[in-house]
C-alpha cells in the first residue's frame, strides 16, 4: 500500500547557502499521525511547509519528490503549478499554526475567515457555508457557535482561537492536516484539550496528521510514527513505540534525558523552614479596575491576587505555578516592589539573617537602593531583555555604574568573572547580544542579574522560551549558583515538570488564589486540589503507556463552579488554605 503522503530526498536551502534541510524522507499513512520532532533550527517546520510550498521567499526546494496519493489519484506536489497547488491548500491538505492570535486576521470575523475555505474550494454560498461552519464550530467545542461566528479573534481566548483555527483547517474535510506546534503557545490544560480534540477529529474523519513539535510528551500522546530531526537531517525514524521506549540514536536519547518529568514516586517533601525568611508576603491582594466603557455600568474588578501569603526561606526556591491569568506574575512584581499591593498586605524583605526586615512598599530612598541591589530579576524572553545596541560588557557593568560600585576596571573584571561563572568566557564581553544563541542569552541575563551580588532572584519563566536541552543547562546553572552563593529564588513558571526539579516548595495559583501549596514531592505524589490534579494530568509524558487523562483535566481546569463542593469558591465566598498534613496546604472547606 502506498502512503498518503510520501516525501523523498527533500533538500531546502536559503539563497546560495548550504542546505538547511538535507535528504529528508518521511511517509504518512491515511488515518495515522506522524510526528516531526526536533529543537529550534532542526528544519522540522520548514520541511512540513515545503509540502504545501509555503516557504519564506528566499528559500528554495533544491531537490525532492513529494507525492500525495489518494483514491482520487496521485498528485506530485513538487511538480504541479502554483494554480493547482492553490486547489490543494486548505482543501485536501490544510494547516494549523503555532500562534493562534497572530494566525487569524484581527480585522475579520472568525466566521468570515473560516467560511472562506468553503467559498474558495466548494464555491459555497454565504448561507451554505455558514451552516456548515456552524456545525464544524460545534464539533470543535464552541459552546455558542453562532456567537463565535460573529466574533473577532481578539474577543476569544487563546484556546478558543486555536479551536477556530482547527475548525478552519477541518471544515473542508482534508485528507491531510499539518499541525505546526499547534499547542506550544497554549496553557497546559488547554493544550491537553486541544490535543484531545485533534485526535477525536482524526478518528472521526480518518485524515492523516503531520504533527510538528519539540515536546516528546505530545508525541507520546499523539503519534504512531516519529521522525527525529536535528540540524536539517533525520536522526531517527520509526514507530512511536519503538523510538519512545528504546531510542537508538544518541541525539534522541539526549532529548529524552533533557526533558524534565513530573516525579510519581512516593515521597514526602520537607516543608520549607519557617525561620530566616528572606521574603515574606503577607495577605497580598491586588485588584485592578477595568473601567467600563459605558458610564452607567459599574466598573469591573479584576482580582489578580487574593490573600497571597508566601514565605521564602534563605537559600531556598519557592515556585509559583499557574496558567496565564492566574496572578503569578503580579505576585512576583509585587514582591519586587514594582507594584503596590492593595492596602492591608505587606511584603517583608530581610537582606541578611537576623537583620530587621524592610517593608518593600514603604522604603526610604536608601532602603530602596539597598533593596534593588539585593533583589534582581531574570526575564522570560532572552531575545528582548537585552538591549541589541549595547555590548555585553556595557549591559553587565551598567548596574554597577548605577549603584556607583568600583572603578571601571574593577567592574570589567567582575563582568568577566560572572561570565565565567555562568559558563561563558570573558572574551565575549565585547560582543553584541545578536551574536549569542537563546540559551547563551539567558546565561547572560543571569550573569547580569548576578552582578550586584543579590541574595534574591526572581525568575519569571526563565526557560519557557528555550529548547529542552538548553532548558536543562539553564536549570543546572541556576542550581549550581544557588548552592555556591546561597541564593534564594522566587521562581515563576507554568511548567510543573521544571518546577518539580528546581523548587523546594510549590504554590499553585488559580484566579489570583493559591489553591494548593506543598513541597514538590508531596504535591506531585498526593495532589488534593482538583486544579492541581488537572495540571498534573494535563502534562504530557513522553511515555506511550501514560496518555493524558482528559477527564481529569476537564474536571479541574473548568471554572471553579464545576469543582467539588469542598473546593468551590466565588468572588464573595472563598475557603481558606487548610493544612492537610505538615507543609501541605489546600484551599478547601473542611
Amino acid at each position, binding site marked *: 500500500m502506498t502512503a498518503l503522503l510520501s516525501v523523498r530526498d527533500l533538500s531546502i536551502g536559503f539563497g546560495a547557502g548550504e542546505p538547511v534541510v538535507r535528504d529528508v524522507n518521511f511517509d504518512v499513512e491515511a488515518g495515522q499521525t506522524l510526528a516531526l520532532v526536533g529543537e529550534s533550527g532542526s528544519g522540522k517546520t520548514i520541511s512540513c511547509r515545503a509540502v504545501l510550498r509555503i516557504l519564506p521567499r528566499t528559500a528554495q526546494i533544491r531537490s525532492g519528490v513529494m507525492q500525495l496519493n489518494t483514491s482520487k489519484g496521485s498528485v506530485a506536489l513538487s511538480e504541479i503549478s502554483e494554480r493547482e497547488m492553490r486547489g490543494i491548500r486548505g482543501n485536501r491538505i*490544510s494547516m494549523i499554526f503555532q500562534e493562534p492570535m497572530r494566525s487569524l*486576521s484581527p*480585522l475579520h470575523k472568525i466566521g468570515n475567515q473560516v467560511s*472562506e475555505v468553503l467559498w474558495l474550494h466548494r464555491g459555497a454560498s454565504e448561507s451554505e457555508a455558514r451552516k456548515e461552519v456552524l456545525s464544524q464550530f460545534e464539533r470543535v467545542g464552541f459552546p455558542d457557535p453562532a456567537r463565535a461566528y460573529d466574533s473577532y479573534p481578539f474577543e476569544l481566548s487563546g484556546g478558543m482561537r486555536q479551536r477556530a483555527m482547527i475548525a478552519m483547517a477541518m471544515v473542508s474535510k482534508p485528507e491531510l492536516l499539518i499541525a505546526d506546534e499547534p499547542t506550544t503557545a497554549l496553557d497546559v490544560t488547554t493544550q491537553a484539550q486541544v490535543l484531545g480534540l485533534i485526535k477525536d477529529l482524526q478518528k472521526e474523519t480518518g485524515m492523516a496528521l503531520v504533527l510538528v513539535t519539540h515536546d516528546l510528551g505530545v508525541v507520546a500522546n499523539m503519534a504512531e510514527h516519529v521522525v527525529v530531526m536535528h540540524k536539517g537531517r533525520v536522526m531517527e525514524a520509526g514507530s512511536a513505540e519503538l523510538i519512545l521506549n528504546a531510542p537508538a540514536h544518541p541525539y534522541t536519547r539526549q532529548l529524552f534525558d533533557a526533558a524534565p518529568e513530573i516525579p510519581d514516586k512516593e515521597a514526602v517533601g520537607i516543608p520549607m523552614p519557617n525561620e530566616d525568611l528572606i521574603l515574606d508576603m503577607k495577605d497580598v491582594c491586588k485588584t485592578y479596575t*477595568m473601567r467600563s466603557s459605558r458610564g452607567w455600568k459599574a466598573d469591573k474588578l479584576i482580582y489578580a491576587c487574593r490573600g497571597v501569603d508566601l514565605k521564602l526561606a534563605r537559600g531556598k526556591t519557592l515556585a509559583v505555578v499557574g496558567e496565564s491569568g492566574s496572578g503569578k506574575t503580579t505576585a512576583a512584581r509585587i514582591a519586587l516592589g514594582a507594584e503596590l499591593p492593595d492596602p492591608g498586605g505587606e511584603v517583608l524583605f530581610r537582606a541578611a539573617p537576623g537583620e530587621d526586615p524592610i517593608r518593600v512598599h514603604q522604603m526610604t530612598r536608601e532602603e530602596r537602593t539597598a533593596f534593588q541591589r539585593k533583589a534582581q530579576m531574570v526575564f522570560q524572553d532572552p531575545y528582548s531583555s537585552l538591549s541589541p545596541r549595547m555590548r555585553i560588557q556595557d549591559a553587565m557593568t551598567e548596574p554597577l555604574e548605577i549603584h556607583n560600585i568600583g572603578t571601571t576596571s574593577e567592574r570589567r573584571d567582575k563582568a568577566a568573572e560572572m561570565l565565567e561563572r555562568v559558563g561563558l568566557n570573558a572574551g565575549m564581553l565585547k560582543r553584541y547580544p545578536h551574536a549569542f544563541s537563546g540559551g547563551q542569552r539567558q546565561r547572560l541575563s543571569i550573569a547580569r542579574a548576578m552582578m550586584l551580588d543579590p541574595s534574591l532572584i526572581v525568575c519569571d519563566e526563565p526557560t519557557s522560551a528555550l529548547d529542552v536541552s538548553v532548558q536543562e543547562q539553564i536549570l543546572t546553572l541556576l542550581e549550581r549558583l544557588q548552592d555556591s552563593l546561597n541564593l534564594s529564588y522566587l521562581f515563576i513558571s507554568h511548567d510543573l515538570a521544571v518546577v518539580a526539579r528546581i523548587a523546594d516548595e510549590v504554590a499553585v495559583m488559580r484566579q489570583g488564589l493559591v489553591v494548593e501549596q506543598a513541597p514538590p514531592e508531596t504535591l506531585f505524589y498526593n495532589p488534593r486540589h482538583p486544579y492541581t490534579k488537572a495540571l498534573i494530568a494535563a502534562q504530557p509524558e513522553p511515555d506511550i503507556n501514560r496518555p493524558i487523562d482528559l477527564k481529569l483535566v476537564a474536571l479541574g481546569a473548568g471554572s471553579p463552579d464545576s469543582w467539588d463542593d469542598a473546593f468551590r469558591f466565588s468572588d464573595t465566598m472563598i475557603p481558606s488554605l487548610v493544612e492537610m498534613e505538615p507543609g501541605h496546604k489546600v484551599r478547601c472547606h473542611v
Partner: protein
Amino acid sequence: MIMLRYAVYRFFTMLLTLLVVSMLIFVIINLPPGDYLSNQIAELQSSGQSAGVAKAEFLRKEYALDRPMWEQYLIWVGFFPGPHGFEGLLQGNYGWSFEFDRPVADIVGDTLWLTVVVNLAAILFVYAVALPLGVMAAAKSRTWVDYSTAFVGYLGLATPNFLLALILFYYGHRYLDLPIGGLMDPVYEGQPMSWDKMKSILVHLIVPTFVIGTSGASAMMQRLRANMLDELGKPYVETAIAKGMSPSRMLTKYPLRVAFNPFVADIGNLLPSMVSGSVLVSVVLGLQTIGPTLLTALKTQDQFLSAFILMFVALLTLIGTMISDILLVMLDPRIRYEGREA
C-alpha cells in the same frame, strides 16, 4: 448604534477643538506688535495726511480694535456685541479686510470652494495613485516593479512643484491642448454655475491636481509599501495562503485591510499640508485659491482676513480628521470595541 454615538461624540469634540483653535489663531495673529491700522496711522502721520488718520481712527473704533484683546476675540467670534451688536463669525460676518478695503467675505468668496475643489481633487489623485502603486511595490518587493515605482516616487518627491507645473503647462498645452493658468476660462468668472463652466473647471484642474498631488502621492506610496511589507510577514498571511487563496485576493482582503489604517488616518493631515504647500504652486499656476490671499494677508497684518482664512483651513483639517477617525472606527473592530467587556 456604536457608530452613530461615536460620530455624534466626535462632532462635538470637533466643535470644541475649533473653539480652542480660534483662540489660538486670534492670539497668534495679534502677537506681533501693532496691527494693520496702527501701522497705517503711523505711516500717514509721518507724511502728514490727517484725513487718512481720521479714517483709520474711525475704523479702529468701528472694528473694536481699541478694546482689550479678549473683548476683541469675543466680538470677532460673535459671543459679545461689538459697536453694532452681534456681528461675528457665528453670525456669518467675517470682518473687514483693511488691505483690500472690502469685506472679507467678498475677497474670499469664490476662492473658498475652489480651494476645496482643488484640494479634494488632489487628495483623490493621491489615493488613486498611491494605493495601487504601493500595494504593487510591496507585493513585488525587490523586483523591477518595486524599483521603478520607487524611482518614480522619489522623482515626484524631489522635483520642485513649481518646476513641475511649468513643465506640465508647456507640454500639456503643446500636445494635449490643455489651458494654461487659472481654474476656469476667464469668461466664466463671476458667472453662475453652468454645465460649460463646470467643464471648463475640470479641464483646468488637470495640471494643478497633478502638480499638487505628486509629492503627497509618492510619500503615501512609500508609506503604504512599508506598512504592507510589515503586514506581509505576519502569520495570518501565511494562514490565508495555506487556505488556498490566490495572491491578489489574499493581498486585498487581509494585509491591505490592516495596512489601510494609517492610510485613512492621513486624510486629516493631508489637507493642511496641501493648502499651505500649494501656495507657491497657486501663484505660479495663477489658481484662484485661498493660498496666495493668505500670504498677502499675513504679510500686511491684515488680521481679520488672515484669521478667517486660518479658521477655514483649521475647519477643513478638523473635518478631515473627523472623517478619518470615523472611517477608522468603521474599518477596525479593535478600535470599535475598545473597552468593551469581553
